[in-house]
């Protein structure tokens, strides 16, 4: 593996986002856990890095920073993640989210970006189709099966299922008593 190590990647990505305390982050933390808010409010620049339980560097990003982070990852010469090789929707029971697997075709380093929201009624993220063209189809697939909407997407409608299909089948709480065999 050539290219940057995970530590170098983490350092450069952090440098794009000065740790100004984003207000939404603090309110979210305070809802979950009031103690952690008073403990470490200075480290919240909207990004969380981890390598635990994965072979790649994982970045969890706040939804409002997603587009900014993604365009930096693609356009910055040092990172240059020009290949979006996998885009998956995931239902984490409480939250819904999207996982982006990115690779750079000249540096050959890999990073995984995750974004999620607790809003299950109307989950919405920014579309990245204008950064990677392949995202247009993949985001439609995620919309079709998870009901996640993407802002600015040029053609966001059902891809595999019919328009009148009820519900989003890959969500964990989807019920279809006729077609699903539950063991």
């Amino acid at each position, binding site marked *: 593996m050539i290219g940057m190590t995970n530590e170098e990647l983490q350092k450069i990505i952090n440098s794009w986002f000065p740790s100004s305390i984003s207000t939404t982050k603090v309110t979210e933390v305070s809802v979950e856990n009031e103690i952690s808010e008073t403990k470490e409010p200075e480290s919240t620049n909207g990004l969380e890095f981890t390598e635990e339980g994965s072979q790649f560097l994982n970045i969890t990003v706040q939804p409002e920073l997603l587009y900014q982070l993604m365009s930096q990852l693609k356009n910055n010469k040092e990172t240059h993640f020009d290949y979006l090789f996998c885009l998956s929707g995931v239902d984490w029971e409480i939250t819904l989210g999207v996982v982006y697997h990115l690779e750079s075709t000249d540096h*050959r380093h890999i990073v995984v970006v995750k974004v999620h929201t607790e809003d299950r009624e109307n989950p919405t993220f920014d579309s990245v189709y204008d950064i990677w063209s*392949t995202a247009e189809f993949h985001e439609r697939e995620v919309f079709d099966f998870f009901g996640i909407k993407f802002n600015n997407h040029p053609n966001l409608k059902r891809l595999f299922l019919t328009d009148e299909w009820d519900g989003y089948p*890959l969500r964990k709480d989807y019920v279809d008593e006729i077609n*699903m065999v539950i063991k």
Partner: protein
Amino acid sequence: METTIANSNFKSEEYFINMGPQHPATHGVLRLLLTIDGEIIKKVEPDLGYIHRSIEKMCERDSYQQIVHLTDRMDYLSSHINNEAVCLTVENALQLEIPDRVKVIRTIIGELTRIASHTLWWGVMGMDVGALTTYFYGFRDREMINDIFEETCGARLTMNYNIPGGLMFDIHPNFVKRTKDFIKHFKTKLPEYDTLLTGNVIFQKRMKGVGILSKEDAISFGASGPVGRGSGYSCDVRKHHPYSAYDKVSFNEVLRTEGDTFARYSVRIQEMWESMAIIEQLIDNIPEGDHQVATNAVIKLPKGEYYERVETARGELGVYIISTGTKNPYRLKFRSPGFSNLSLLNHIAVGGKIGDLVASMATLDLVIPDIDR
């Protein structure tokens, strides 16, 4: 008189036509909504889902051994390689040490699969552009490979030969001899493919300069396999992320820079030679040893996320597993090569004629169950 016709009130108007879901050139139930002006294509919009089986949802209730069987039904022409993708993910997650014998046999059968897939592609692609003979040539040679598979795996198409931990059973005693016979046979037949079709002037005029895809667009659209390599984009998973025995063999990654349908065609023809070279390096040196390592009857992956990728005949297949430590994956995503390759069809077809669309689509080598997982 000519000028009066040209200046008359004829107005060209855009209109829709349906191509598919039942159409010989879509090779399966794919429906394309074409917006055309005369015969010039303005927009191609695929309508998918005619054979979607929701394999990803089924995987969430299946054990890891069962999931392997479902992957046959995605890209059925690369069934062995699809099986391998899931097995590799599970084995790497469990950190199993796989015997060299297994790795070598998997690689040989994987390359035979690639040749079988490419011969079938070559046959039907020739037929798509009007050369019916290629169909019979292609199927004749593919049949020999299917016979080898049948003897060793018990199946010709949906092979299920890989299991997490190795192979379901050892190779048939005839396997080595028959594979060598095939290579010998195919080395005399592959040049015939070139004489029959590649050098044909009508064919070349039909293919060259049609459906051009630039390298930047190929990367942006997530193209992989021969589609990406026809545009000069080095995307061979066997080279960049070697698995099984690919780090032990020497072979060339076939690259062309033209990016048109003829470049994608040439890449696949040349890849068959490379596949034969890989098989020849391994067939006499299959290491002795076990054909599988023992795994628990119930496989539970440790909590975490796993991603593995392989090079199928169509391109990069990715398997993304999120495990919570139970016997089923919490979420399993297949990143299929056909899905990304289809997404660029509109881009390369706009501005061309309907006949060019058929040629472009033929060199994308779409297998519909791979798109409708």
